């Protein structure tokens, strides 16, 4: 069949529609697929969509749209909230849903500027101003941020609490940038309406305290803050009591009349509000500074960059005081800042003391990078300091072998990793990494090459005796943490840290690996070089007592069964520490001594030194300490050295003890043995003032303790000594003698009976050093 058709009809009715269809099918879908592939284009699409939606609305509808898409989108109404928070002792991510609209900063600024003029005058407006100021700060346009505050305040009734809040916010920004004059002018004028007065008063006290300290009036600052805190607490206590009364009354009513629907609002818990935490933190910071006579504020500044020099903008920098680092970042941090385009940050009016920096980053910013900071990296801010603390992120170290869950069956494992420029040595750690259970410990330190071959016996026997448990009681122990590398069914992971000549961390293999490129090689492997014994199976079945018995049986059958000996010792030591039954520890010592003959590893020697140290058996202690030294091969770490110094001190070897303390404290940033060192120095006849220098040079950083604790105690001793120097010196010598010569009971009795004095406080603190 043939069709007769004119060319013009063929073109307009057949070819043209067909080619349009082909275009539609081919071109459009491919461009759409591209959009799905690239999140940038996807979010761009969402942004365009939102902007178009905004374009087509006006009036209150539009304000509502801005509110739901920008203001409510910020999690917890806190602009300083980031995907990831990283500090020396922690790394945590927020479980916020990712924002999809991804408006550009310019978009947000324009819309927020509009909102603070036309939006409803409520708390959301305050938040809009905060957000706007944050956006301007991130662009390095601080003045525009201040202007936004002023503009927003003008829109409000100048006596409303919202206007007052804005005024305080303005004062805070002025303080943060070191503009004392503006801050002072605002605070002087600030009087508050009765509505929300307590909160505003507390805020004002907090700001005034900071202002006064920055001006050098530390004592006045302390008074203002203390008073502010007291009245704030008193107010809430009153509210709490009232509410309790109302609640109990209404409960009574409900019970009497059986009426439903009584209000069930409960009183707010006392001591949890952020305002109160702010005041408490400020009070303790000022108090500590006043005690140390450090009454002028400091400036801490720096930049945040990558190792290739690229600045990281829009990242949060938090300067956190020693007393605050152990809780997570709140919405009321005194020293927080967002980095500008060049990654810069600068804190003004910093109260002298010990601080750590923490970062707030987005997933994109941290992905594949690490901040090489360590647990005990502290910044000491001294009065009047101008410190520069730059932060440099490093690319994650890449592991090369064994990786990607390969199975190893040989008698040693060859670990390889990519060499790091400037690294003088590496630290290898590893352990079990199962779903829902992981346990890791150090395998070898001070590896000078970027590879090392570890015999499986070393993995089996030199892994130490620490363990994990999932609850209370011996039954709750985690069997995987007992068998560790001896379990052929478990999956293991490993990691590397690289250090420079000064022992400072350069980079590490562990970190955020969030996309296909940064995931790299998986740090997992299987080790199938032995088979599980019947006792091992019992342990894995969570029957530790039966396992313990069977290991004992194994040893009876074959006294050279190193695996059974190792497991027996580990289980006994764990059971002893869980049940507080010391006899079990005693029983574990003979098999441990047998083990060290079979497998001479340093961890066995260390456990034995610890045991004899605790029992003040110095002869055995010395024997195993030198054995440890021999087996360890590398230089003693500062902890072992400090313990040894204490042991030498108790043996009357004062000179050697002091030498060892001096080396150990130089290398240990936590300075946990400073108390013992001070005692040894004083006992050797050093003066209080020379000991004071040591106390200041080696501040102790322990959980919940103030870094100025020892200097303050020495200061008190000096003051106490002035009254009766001869008497004091004699008494000090006597008490220190009890401590040196292990006369713990005598010392404890004296502490209990003595009336409180600087000497008693000092001796109590010295005795607790461990």
């Amino acid at each position: 069949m043939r069709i007769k058709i004119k060319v013009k009809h063929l073109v307009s009715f057949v070819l043209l529609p067909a080619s349009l269809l082909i275009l539609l099918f081919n071109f459009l879908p491919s461009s759409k697929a591209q959009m799905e592939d690239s999140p940038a284009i996807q979010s761009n699409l969402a942004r365009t969509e939102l902007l178009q939606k905004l374009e087509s609305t006006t009036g209150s509808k539009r304000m509502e749209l801005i509110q739901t898409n920008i203001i409510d989108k910020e999690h917890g109404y806190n602009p300083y909230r980031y995907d990831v928070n990283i500090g020396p002792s922690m790394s945590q991510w927020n479980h916020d849903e990712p924002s999809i609209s991804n408006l550009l900063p310019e978009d947000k600024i324009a819309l927020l500027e509009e909102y603070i003029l036309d939006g409803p005058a409520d708390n959301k407006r305050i938040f809009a101003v905060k957000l706007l100021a944050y956006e301007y700060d991130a662009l390095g346009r601080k003045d525009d941020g201040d202007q936004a505050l002023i503009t927003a305040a003008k829109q409000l009734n100048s006596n409303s609490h919202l206007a007052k809040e804005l005024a305080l916010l303005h004062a805070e920004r002025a303080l943060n940038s070191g503009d004392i004059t503006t801050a002072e002018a605002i605070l002087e004028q600030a009087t508050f309406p009765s509505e929300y007065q307590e909160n505003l008063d507390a805020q004002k006290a907090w700001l005034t305290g900071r202002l006064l300290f920055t001006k050098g009036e530390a004592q006045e600052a302390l008074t203002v803050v203390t008073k502010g805190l007291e009245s704030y607490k008193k107010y809430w206590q009153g509210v709490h009591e009232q509410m309790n009364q109302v609640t109990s009354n209404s409960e009574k009513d409900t019970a009497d009349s059986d009426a439903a629907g009584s209000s069930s609002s409960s009183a707010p818990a006392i001591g949890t509000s952020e305002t109160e935490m702010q005041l408490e933190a400020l009070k303790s910071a000022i108090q500590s500074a006043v005690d140390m006579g450090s009454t002028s504020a400091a400036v801490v500044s720096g930049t945040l960059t990558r190792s290739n020099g690229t600045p990281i903008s829009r990242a949060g920098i938090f300067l956190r005081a020693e007393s605050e680092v152990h809780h997570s970042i709140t919405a009321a941090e005194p020293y927080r800042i967002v980095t500008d385009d060049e990654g810069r940050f600068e804190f003004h009016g910093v109260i002298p003391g010990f601080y750590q920096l923490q970062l707030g980053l987005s997933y994109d910013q941290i992905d594949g990078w690490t901040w090489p900071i360590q647990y005990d990296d502290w910044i000491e801010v001294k009065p009047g300091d101008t410190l520069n603390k730059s932060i440099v992120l490093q690319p994650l170290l890449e592991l090369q072998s064994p990786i990607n869950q390969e199975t190893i069956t040989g008698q040693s494992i060859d670990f390889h990793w990519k060499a790091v420029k400037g690294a003088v040595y590496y630290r290898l750690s590893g352990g079990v990494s199962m779903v829902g259970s992981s346990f890791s410990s150090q395998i070898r330190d001070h590896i000078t090459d970027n590879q090392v071959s570890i015999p499986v016996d070393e993995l089996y026997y030199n892994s130490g005796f620490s363990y994990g448990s999932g609850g209370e009681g011996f039954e709750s122990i985690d069997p995987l943490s007992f068998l560790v590398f001896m379990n052929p069914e478990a999956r293991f992971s490993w990691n590397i840290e690289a250090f420079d000549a000064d022992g400072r961390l350069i980079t590490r293999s562990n970190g955020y690996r969030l996309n296909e490129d940064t995931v790299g090689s998986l740090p997992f492997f299987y080790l199938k070089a032995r088979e599980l014994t019947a006792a091992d199976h019992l342990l894995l079945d969570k029957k530790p007592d039966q396992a313990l018995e069977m290991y004992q049986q194994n040893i009876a059958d074959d006294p050279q069964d190193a695996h059974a000996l190792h497991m027996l010792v580990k289980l006994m030591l764990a059971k002893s520490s869980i049940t507080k039954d010391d006899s079990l520890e005693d029983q574990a010592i003979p098999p441990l001594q047998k083990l060290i003959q079979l497998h001479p590893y340093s961890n066995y020697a260390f456990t034995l030194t610890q045991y004899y140290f605790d029992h003040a058996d110095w002869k055995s202690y010395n024997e195993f300490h030198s054995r440890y030294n021999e087996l360890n091969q590398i230089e003693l770490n500062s902890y072992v050295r400090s313990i040894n110094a204490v042991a030498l001190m108790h043996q009357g070897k004062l000179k050697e003890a002091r030498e060892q303390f001096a080396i150990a404290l130089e290398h240990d940033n936590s300075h946990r043995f400073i108390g013992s060192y001070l005692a040894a120095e004083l006992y050797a006849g050093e003066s209080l003032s020379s000991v004071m220098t040591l106390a200041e040079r080696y501040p102790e950083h322990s959980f919940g303790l103030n870094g100025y604790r020892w200097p303050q105690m020495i200061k008190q001793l000096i003051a106490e000594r002035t009254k009766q120097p001869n008497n004091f010196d004699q008494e000090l010598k006597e008490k220190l003698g009890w401590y040196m010569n292990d006369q713990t009971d005598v010392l404890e009795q004296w502490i209990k009976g003595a009336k409180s004095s600087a000497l008693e406080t000092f001796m109590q603190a010295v005795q607790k050093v461990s």
Partner: protein
Amino acid sequence: MNTGNTENTKREAIKQQLEEELQSIHFEGHERVLKMTHPPTFGARLLALWNKEIEIPVKPIGAIGAIILVVSLTLHHPEVKHQPQQNVQQHANRELIEAGGNTYWKDIYEQAVKKHEN
């Protein structure tokens, strides 16, 4: 007068004879001559093409058309339908996990582990 008549008669006879002789000859070159003397414009040619009638065999053209349709449908249709949904879902439900000391997105981690499963 007679002479005139005779001449007329003669001319008519010749004409008649000529017509008789030319009867079998037809001039058919009008178009060619016109084309040569008045060549057609480009527009006119296009118009001619535009209005040209052609014949198309139904079977082969229909077959080719059907193939193109099926191929384009199978290649593109599923993509258009499913991919966007998948991506959006993935983004909203993403979960971070920690394994071996690293932090991964769970989906990427599981993919990588699966790839290296023994």
